[in-house]
């Protein structure tokens, strides 16, 4: 395995973001500063129901700008939804996009932006650096503490024909601004809080051990792990409000900054395959897979995993690598269990015979490239089986 010195050449890209309470109320100022005429507001039905859309609409109204609402988005945003949103954007002569919600609306909004400027089908941008021109101004308002799509260079869109989650990766996808307001977390239910929280933890883990990591991403990743480990369960208990929620939002942001620049690994490659194939919750898949991936990767980069073990609150003094690895996977499993995710993939409808195909999909996912350990198809099949 190649070890990277701190002076290896690295890039770190992040959008302008506002973090803190009342960040959402700064939206009208952003709209005014951008000097736009009409906004496409992208969200999903859950966010509309939660009331955050009306909060955002008031901000848009205050700025004196008209808007059109597009909320027809599934939990795993689909290619046809992107194309419909793009049509609405062009038909309504919009010149800006505001996305509010979790990963789904934000990934979809990123897709809409590049489709309507480049006039191509969303599937044409699958892969890394495949986008010729940036989309229109995009401001993201996350309402979950997990996906970090509001600051990332990723957009994951379901190819509904192939049943595959396409990873579209480009610095061009990084939004113009993110308004990260922990108050928005108060409307998440416990399940969503758990899934998104565990997703953020996976972001931090995979970014830290990624072969594209850097000292800057490491800093964010480790701090993210500490914040998530210390606050997730308490946040679920407190109903998404207060100090724990604030910390979880920060943890998610730091994890996002880390993975957006260092990318991810085998967990995401496998979760993407599952999500596309069975339309499962992304966070849930990640949560189930993480401990098995750590177990699989540990030997390839034990030093970094030991740092993560410390961040998870494990005193590794005097412990052997195997002891540390076991303690680490146990701590992850414990956090998952305490969060309420207590089942394997069989409970989610996965059939054993589907595993080889899923392994193939995982091997073709961009995230597999930065996994610290070179994985064979059989390795992945074993990991799916272990999490069954």
């Amino acid at each position, binding site marked *: 395995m190649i070890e990277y010195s701190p002076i290896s050449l690295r890039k770190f890209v992040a959008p302008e973001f506002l973090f803190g309470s009342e960040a959402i109320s700064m939206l009208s100022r952003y709209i005014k500063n951008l000097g736009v005429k009409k906004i496409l507001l992208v969200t999903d039905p859950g966010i509309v129901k939660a009331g955050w859309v009306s909060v955002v609409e008031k901000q848009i109204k205050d700025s004196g700008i008209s808007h059109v609402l597009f909320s027809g988005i599934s939990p795993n945003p689909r290619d046809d939804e992107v194309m419909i949103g793009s049509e609405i954007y062009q038909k309504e002569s919009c010149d800006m996009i505001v996305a509010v919600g979790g990963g789904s609306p934000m990934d979809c909004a990123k897709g809409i932006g590049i489709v309507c400027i480049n006039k191509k089908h969303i599937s044409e941008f699958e892969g890394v650096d495949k986008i010729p021109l940036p989309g229109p101004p995009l401001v993201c308002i996350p309402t979950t503490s997990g996906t970090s799509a509001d600051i990332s260079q990723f957009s994951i869109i379901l190819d509904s024909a192939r049943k595959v989650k396409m990873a579209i990766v480009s610095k061009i996808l990084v939004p113009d601004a993110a308004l990260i307001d922990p108050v928005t977390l108060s409307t998440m239910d416990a399940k969503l809080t758990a899934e998104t929280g565990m997703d953020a933890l996976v972001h931090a883990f995979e970014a830290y051990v990624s072969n594209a990591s850097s000292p800057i991403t490491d800093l964010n990743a480790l701090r993210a792990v500490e914040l998530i480990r210390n606050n997730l369960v308490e946040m679920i208990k407190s109903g998404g409000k207060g100090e724990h929620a604030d910390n979880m939002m920060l943890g998610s942001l730091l994890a996002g900054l880390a993975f957006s620049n260092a*990318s991810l690994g085998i967990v995401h490659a496998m979760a993407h395959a599952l999500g596309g194939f069975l339309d499962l919750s992304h966070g849930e898949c990640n949560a189930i897979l993480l401990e098995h991936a750590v177990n699989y990767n540990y030997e390839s980069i034990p030093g970094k995993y030991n740092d993560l073990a410390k961040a998870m609150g494990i005193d590794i003094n005097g412990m052997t690598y195997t002891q540390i690895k076991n303690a680490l996977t146990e701590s992850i499993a414990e956090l998952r269990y305490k969060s309420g995710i207590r089942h394997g993939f069989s409970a989610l409808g996965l059939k054993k015979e589907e595993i080889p195909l899923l392994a*193939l999909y995982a091997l073709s996912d961009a995230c597999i490239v930065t996994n610290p350990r070179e994985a064979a198809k059989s390795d992945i099949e074993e990991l799916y089986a272990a999490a069954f």
Partner: protein
Amino acid sequence: MPQPFDGNSEKEILRSKIMGMGDASLKKSYYTQLQEHVINLEKSRIETEESFKRAEANKNLFIALFNQASDGIIVVDVDSGKFKFCNKAFTDMFDYHSDNPLLSFNLVLPIEDAENLENALKKMASGEIRFLNNVVIHKNDGGIVYADISGSAVEIESIKYVLAVFRDMTGARKLEIEKAEFASKLNQAQKMEAIGTLAGGVAHDFNNIIGGIMGLAEISLDETQGNVELQDNLNQIIKACKRARDITTQLLAITYKTEKKYEPVSFNEIIRDSVVLLKATLPAGVSIRVTESAKEDTVLADHAGISQIIMNLCTNSAHAMNYSGEICIKTRNADVDECLMQKNPDLLPGQHFLLEVSDTGCGISKEIVDRIFEPFFTTKEKGKGTGLGLSIIHGIVKNHGGVISVYSEEGLGTTFRIFFPISQQHRKMSETENLSETLTAADADILLVDDEEVLVKVGEKILEKMGNRVVSFTSPLEALAYFENNCNTFDAVVTDMAMPKMNGLQLAKKFTTLEKKFR
């Protein structure tokens, strides 16, 4: 099927790109799009500039065409009556010369005409009418414009206007009136000529017939020998014949084909002589004022005819003034040019003597003024006028190559104007001796030719009664044939002038070639 990455190198490239080391890996930047936008803006600026220039050129073209059009064109808001556009031809038509644009009809027209035009344009706006021809428009300065107007509704920048085109027909209209006048005069002249010819022809034949009746009556008178009653009857016949001959003689004057000998005379002198006579005969209430301005007054004329003209005109005038007032006689020279010729088709170019006789009498009404030169047309009571006076004057003037015209205002008076061509021939300084002497021939052999059988008979009798021997013919050709064989026999030849196949003059020439005696 999904395709796993092909080997480490592909993976390494992808990893490098994910880290932001790929060629195309840039943070979101609108610079490229802005650049493109700036280029497009510049393009559109140039296009706008060019289209502005084109629009300007089009506008200038439009203005040029608009103002060069010979018809007056206006675009009017019918509700307010205000002009949106009005071209140069229109302002010229109404003599509007100002730096300020012409804004409405009110500025150039009397209120009534402005209102009428606005009403007409409103009808054109509603499509009720499309054309309005022969519109008479009075200008504020008293002038008149005859115009044909066509108009239709147009919409400019969502406002409804009327586009009206004014075609100035003033020139054409004047020409039309002149043409009509000309045609009327021509018609009158033709009519006069026809009547003259007719009257002359009838008079000629009547003259012959009356000559025969009178001659025979006179011969018969000599043979009545004491039959008083018969003598009385014959004298009545002769008296009636003389009256009839007077009338036919007058009628003959109307015809234009009399072959009178004209000699250079002084028109002014004849006027002076005639006025002396007139003053003696007209009542004291009528005065005659003569203004002689014509320096050139020599005309080739029949002295008696001219005198008759003056006498007749003045007598008419005195009658028209009810024998109380002034008759003005003016003379001057007039150079007949094309303009004058157009108005009087019978005039010939050159210097003319112009005689004007004016009175302040009752005038002639428009209804009858065209008929006054017709023979037997009279307004006088039955028996008080023959209706031949003016037609005789007309005939005399016509025979002299002159033109007579009349201008009359009912209740104000009448002026006759007569043009006579000036003659360049010199007048004879003294009147030649009257050559007419009574020929008394007796015991002579005379050849008599006349196509009228009655006249031949009368002639025969008169000549024979004087003691002559007469051989007579009614055909000039037969007479000539006879003369060829017997030319030595005759001492004299008496021949009629107007004869079919050969006239008297031609016949006389033949005789002179055949017999020296007659040269």
